[in-house]
């Protein structure tokens, strides 16, 4: 565990000790705020719970995008700068390396989520929502982002450069988002399969309404585990080349 936290701490420091980490945070918060203001609070007579649902709907997308964006550097940058050999020559296992990298990105996501708290807090000015609803929404957003971060980690593990990692990660995440659309055009049994796989419509929607979706927790957990496992296998395969 010590090795995992060591890698996570260094990578998290690499995010926040450079101007780019804060630029990404600022841009993501700006985008999140604009979307919330323009789309989330449109109209005059919205229930507070409706505003909160809109916030989690929009913020979930921004968080997912941030997750894919920040993970592109995890392994691809190490390869580009030649520092990957430090990790590969260390006594840490490939699974520990992947876990450390994933954890660092999740720490950054949690920081972003913490900084976005002012938006749901603003609802209390003219409305009323429960803390539980907010907590459940953030839980859903965290597991959604976790799946995106895991996909980005895998994409970075198989890519030689960061741009390629970003493209691969974004395409896979977009596929999972678009599954609801694919399900509408499919026949059984693929209709049910794609509907189940849809990140937003099926699995994330209940969290936006303040309902803990255990099926969604299991699903996002499974996607996270599967892609982290793929990332580990990708690193291990390089030793056997």
């Amino acid at each position, binding site marked *: 565990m*010590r*090795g995992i936290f*060591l*890698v996570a701490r*260094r990578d998290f420091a*690499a995010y926040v*000790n*450079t101007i780019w980490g804060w630029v990404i945070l600022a841009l993501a918060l700006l985008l999140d705020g604009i979307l919330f203001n323009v789309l989330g609070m449109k109209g005059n007579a919205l229930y507070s719970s409706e505003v909160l649902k809109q916030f989690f709907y929009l913020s979930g997308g921004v968080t997912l995008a941030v997750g894919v964006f920040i993970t592109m550097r995890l392994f691809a940058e190490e390869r580009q*700068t*030649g*520092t*990957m*050999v*430090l*990790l*590969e*020559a*260390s*006594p*840490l*296992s490939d699974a520990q390396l992947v876990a450390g990298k994933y954890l660092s990105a999740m720490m950054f996501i949690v920081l972003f989520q913490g900084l976005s708290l002012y938006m749901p807090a603003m609802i209390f000015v003219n409305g009323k929502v429960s803390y539980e609803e907010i907590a459940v929404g953030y839980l859903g957003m965290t597991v959604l982002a976790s799946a995106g971060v895991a996909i980005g980690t895998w994409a970075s593990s198989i890519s030689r450069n960061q741009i390629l990692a970003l493209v691969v990660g974004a395409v896979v995440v977009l596929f999972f988002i678009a599954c609801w659309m694919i399900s509408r055009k499919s026949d059984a049994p693929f209709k049910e399969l794609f509907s189940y796989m849809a990140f937003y419509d099926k699995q994330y929607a209940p969290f936006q309404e303040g309902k803990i979706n255990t099926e969604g927790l299991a699903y996002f957990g499974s996607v996270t585990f599967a892609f982290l496992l793929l990332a580990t296998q990708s690193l291990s395969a390089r*030793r*056997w*080349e």
Partner: protein
Amino acid sequence: MITVSGLTHYYGNRRAVEDLSFTIAENEIVGILGLNGAGKSTTLKVLAGLVIPTAGTVTVDGTDLVAAGAEFRSRIGYLPEDPPLYKEMTVTEFLLYVGQLKGRSAADVLARLPAVLKTCQIDQVADRVIGELSHGYKKRVGIAQAIIHQPRLVILDEPISGLDPKQIVEMRQVVRALGKQCTVLISSHILAEISETCDRILVLNGGRIVASGVESELAAAAGTQGTRVTLQLRGSREQIEGALRHVTGLQSSNLAEEPGGLWKVHVALGADHRESLVAALVTAGVGVRRMVEDESELESIFLGLTQGATA
């Protein structure tokens, strides 16, 4: 003690190294010499635990590379040709991170840090950001990261490439100092450097070891045994030629006049009879201003070995 036995590695269908077997004693500095594609990098990567060999075994103090897995890598320090450095960190921060990454506690690393900084001659830049350092300092920080966890074997791939003459001299001192602390394996394409810093040389060609030993043993294997020197002398042609006739094992000599009554003389000796050469010249009243061993000697040995192996 490092033991490599029957080491073979294929990249797909392409053979990189085949049936390499050698041992390296404790605190020995061994050089790996070979042309591009000879299998040097693959050998180093296998020893560093970066690549799992197709066949064969590698053990460090009895611990097997494949059986020990990740734990094996804590016994190895590795510096690739381009030092792997996080340029935004200071030297101390970086070494503290790498030491812990290699399994040492922070307290252990901090205790060892002053000695490592001194060995690598980077104590004066310990608090500087790595990105701001010169290439020579970066190379030395690269060596420091390879030894910070007190490994049994340190592998240096082209440690002097890109260094200026002053930095090369300093790097030699660093490598020699390393040899007192651990076993060192160096790969370099600069033949004179290998000869200068290593106790023993392994010559690789076509993925196989074609010769192993100290320089004289390699010369014997290559059939180019002997010594070639260049002298700068003061005296007459007759005096010099007369003196050379009395030198034991003289194979050939070549005189060229230089300004100021000086002579540049190339001499080939059948064995290392440099003392008798100087004695003969001095006895004949010839002024010996300088004697330099020809740098191309190892080169000719190397070419003899590799050409012989491929023929």
